[in-house]
């Protein structure tokens, strides 16, 4: 049962990712990426991580992709105008890196999962556990991330107000 669901979801995820890369229209790419995100969130459920499933949907599918779509629609930049390569080194570098990644994945798939990677306790990713880890073991990284986000918000506000003041002066 789980294997069937996994195979279907994984096929959808891979198909979504490939279609996202191949489609020429930015909105189509966004929709395929959305399908990919939803499929990956289902994979999280299969891995007994329901909290990650919900967060994946809320943050990536619900917030970030809406912003992508919003910006693409506002700018009217659906069509890829320039298909020429801007950087000559981009394609060889990308191919090399993906070959390395594929090799690693193949190695791990052939070797089989590590014995300590098998999960016996299915409650290991319950919301309480995640909160506990975030607020004790990983408190410093958590706070630093929060601080970075705050700085980004302040930056947006500063940029916005200076722009509107310039508009007033005119």
């Amino acid at each position, binding site marked *: 049962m789980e294997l069937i669901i996994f195979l279907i979801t994984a096929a959808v995820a891979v198909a979504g990712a490939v279609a996202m890369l191949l489609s020429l229209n930015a909105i189509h790419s966004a929709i395929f990426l959305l399908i990919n995100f939803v499929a990956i969130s289902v994979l999280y459920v299969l891995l007994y991580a329901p909290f990650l499933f919900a967060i994946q949907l809320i943050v990536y599918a619900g917030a970030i992709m809406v912003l992508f*779509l919003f910006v693409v629609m506002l700018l009217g930049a659906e069509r890829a105008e320039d298909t020429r390569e801007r950087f000559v080194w981009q394609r060889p570098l990308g191919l090399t890196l993906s070959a390395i990644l594929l090799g690693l994945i193949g190695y791990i798939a052939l070797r089989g999962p590590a014995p300590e990677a098998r999960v016996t306790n299915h409650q290991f990713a319950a919301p309480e556990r995640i909160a506990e880890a975030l607020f004790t073991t990983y408190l410093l990284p958590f706070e630093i991330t929060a601080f970075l986000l705050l700085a980004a918000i302040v930056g947006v506000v500063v940029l916005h107000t200076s722009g509107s003041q310039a508009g007033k002066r005119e």
Partner: protein
Amino acid sequence: MTWIDLVILVVKCIVLSLAATAVFAYFTLFERRTLARLQNRMGPNRAGPGGLLQPLADAVKLFFKEDVTPLMADRWVYLVSPTFALIPAIIIWATIPVGMWPDGQGGNWLQLAEINVGVLYLLAVMSVGVYGITVAGWASNNKYSMLGGIRASAQVISYELALGLTVLGAVMQAQSFSTAVIVERQAQMWNIVPQFLGFVVFIIAATAEVVRAPFDLVEAEQELVGGYNTEYSSMKFALFFMSEYVKLVAMNAIAVTLFLGGWQFPGLQTLTLFVTQQYGAAVGNAVLGLTSLGAFLLKVLALSFVSVWIRATLPRVRYDQLMNLGWKVLLPLSLINVAITAVLNVLLPDAPTLTAIISLVVGVIILAVTANVGRPGKEKRTVKLVEIGL
């Protein structure tokens, strides 16, 4: 999982989806009749006794309308987006406990899926629901539809924050993400008392989230012809219509679950205990299931009436008012609500009644102050005449 469990699950899913769509059909009739009464007219009353067959007549009419696809539309996206809109509206019902009918193994017949992050599931599905509208607006290749779609995405992400934070208040009150546990914890007192501020913000933000009047800028007829669904006709239009109403009823059901005690009502336990002693556990369970389902539906109906009432009473807001309300009023209010809930629950963990009264009073005061300070129409508009040399 054996195959019989799988069959039961599939049947439950089908029944729930059909129930959601049936509720949609009769909600349209309810809304039209109630709106008509509020506007001093009769409303649709010709088809069947008291107009009861009107939804069927509407469905037949929509089926027989011509189905037009615009020539310049993005064909596939145009065809798919109505289903994009409808699917989240239906699957959101999966974790809402619509009643309590124990199945004897610790489960509940009237809740499709009990997961430990039920509330987050609701928020997740809600946030995916906007894609249908946005993408439909883009795919129609029509500037009015496009504007409607852009408005929808901006409005929904703005109000999602306030909505999520008010839901967090209810979660903190029950100390669980599970919808079933949240309902159980409200046996003594409904969450509307300790979370009054949260409830009011939730209702406003939920109305904006399902883009309904007075926040229906997405389909403002005077500005955008029909909004995102201008180019849609026949059953595809009906699917958008359906998704809007199913989402609205689902929002009311979520509000009932989180703030109005779900399927609980005073005296439910006494009644169940009495029937169980008299007629045995099976009859007791059945009575519990039916009465709790009835109580839940009655509460949803009451909230639905409030939604219709709001639609009949309030005019549509302007776009800047919409954004100001979302970001400058509702978001701070919901943050204050979270702060109050957190502080009170930590300071007085053993006195739920006292906590509830304090937060109710504080909530009412804050709402009154906000309503007084933020009342629109106070500032005098001065018009300056400028001479134009021609």
